[in-house]
């Protein structure tokens, strides 16, 4: 018989509502009717897996994807993917994307008057290892203006997309940097009621992964929904 045990639901206040008026574009893109609670079935407790053979080993080093070196401050971003039960999530796909050191994305929609860097695309991907660990080498992204409100600036951030073992565990988030003065004013970062949940989006400066004469290290652990306990796990 298939194990149809579902995944845990978020703690109150730890996930954003779809409508968050300070983030102006949520107003016309969020549902007005309540979501309908869906017990998890086989469709939600399964999900795609990705083949390590299809992921280029260089994809986790964003500073070595072009002929020359990108401009900016080199950093290592590493951490683990865990679930709410504290189990590591091995062999799961992480995709990242980010602005360059000047705060400009390599994307036609980004018209910010800052230079593109021919040696930086801002795209990375990796699978976690058997212990759920991942590691990216990149450059520290720049802050950049956006049109949400007068004199609006996004704090420096890296976008993360993570799959986990099931459709129910899919997560897209953003990682921020400690001490960024713009965090206080950012409606996207401030989307959750729970301050502790919000602050977990801020990476931690880490001596262990800081390499002498090379680059600073930042740690960012990601937690995915955990499975409810199963009868045979008790």
């Amino acid at each position: 018989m298939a194990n149809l045990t579902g995944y845990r639901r978020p703690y109150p206040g730890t996930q954003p509502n779809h409508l968050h008026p300070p983030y102006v574009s949520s107003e016309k893109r969020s549902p007005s009717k309540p979501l309908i609670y869906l017990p998890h079935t086989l469709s939600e407790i399964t999900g795609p897996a990705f083949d390590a053979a299809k992921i280029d080993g260089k994809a986790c080093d964003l500073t070595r994807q072009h002929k020359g070196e990108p401009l900016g401050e080199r950093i290592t971003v590493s951490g683990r993917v865990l679930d709410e039960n504290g189990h590591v999530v091995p062999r799961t796909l992480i995709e990242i994307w980010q602005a360059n050191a000047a705060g400009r994305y390599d994307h036609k929609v980004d018209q910010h008057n800052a230079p593109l860097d021919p040696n930086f695309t801002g795209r990375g991907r990796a699978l976690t290892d058997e212990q759920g660990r991942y590691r990216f080498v990149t450059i520290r992204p720049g802050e950049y203006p956006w049109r949400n409100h007068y004199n609006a600036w996004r704090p420096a951030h890296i976008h993360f997309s993570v799959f986990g073992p099931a459709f129910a565990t899919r997560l897209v988030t953003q990682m921020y940097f400690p001490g960024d003065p713009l965090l206080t004013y950012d409606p996207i970062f401030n989307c959750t009621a729970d301050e502790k949940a919000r602050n977990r989006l801020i990476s931690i400066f880490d001596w262990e992964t800081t390499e002498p004469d090379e680059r600073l290290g930042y740690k960012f652990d990601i937690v995915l929904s955990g499975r409810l306990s199963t009868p045979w796990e008790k």
Partner: protein
Amino acid sequence: MSLQATTSQTVGPYFRIGMEWLFKEDLAGPGVAGERILIAGRVLDADGQGVSDAVLEFWQADAQGKYAHPDDQQEKSGQPAFQGFGRVPTAEDGRFRFTTIKPGAVPGPDGKLQAPHIVVSVFMRGLLRRLVTRIYFPGEPANAADFALNLVESARRATLIAMKSEQPAGHLEWNVVLQGPDETVFFDC
């Protein structure tokens, strides 16, 4: 040990940079058994305007109703060539399309079969958290007893069922309406 899941954040307008390599409009390559279908539609905002910067992800079982996943322990042979995952962005006018095979029925609660369906994640700038919905198929007798469709008030159920398209014949139309009288049903998943 108990941790709390990381807070979701929007994909923003520039997701193409990181997600484009997995854009996949054809979920079922040659040799995958099943009835070939094409589903096309639009993502529309509260003003009925097409959303030009959304990305949809699909997950489905094969034609026999088996998922390519270790937790699917049904005694069905499976299709090694069929993964069941797709990801497509919307175009300037909010249009998207994908081709696949019609999934078979998979088990639901109490061992009853669910009607054939595809589960969908919707991401876009403006959404701090993904929206989850399902695509069902028109003229499917099993829809009437489907457990998830029956969680929805009858007047709104049609938003989850693809429509037979006039042009071209044989295609299916299914739209994501974010807000308004025809708002798509989204699930708390």
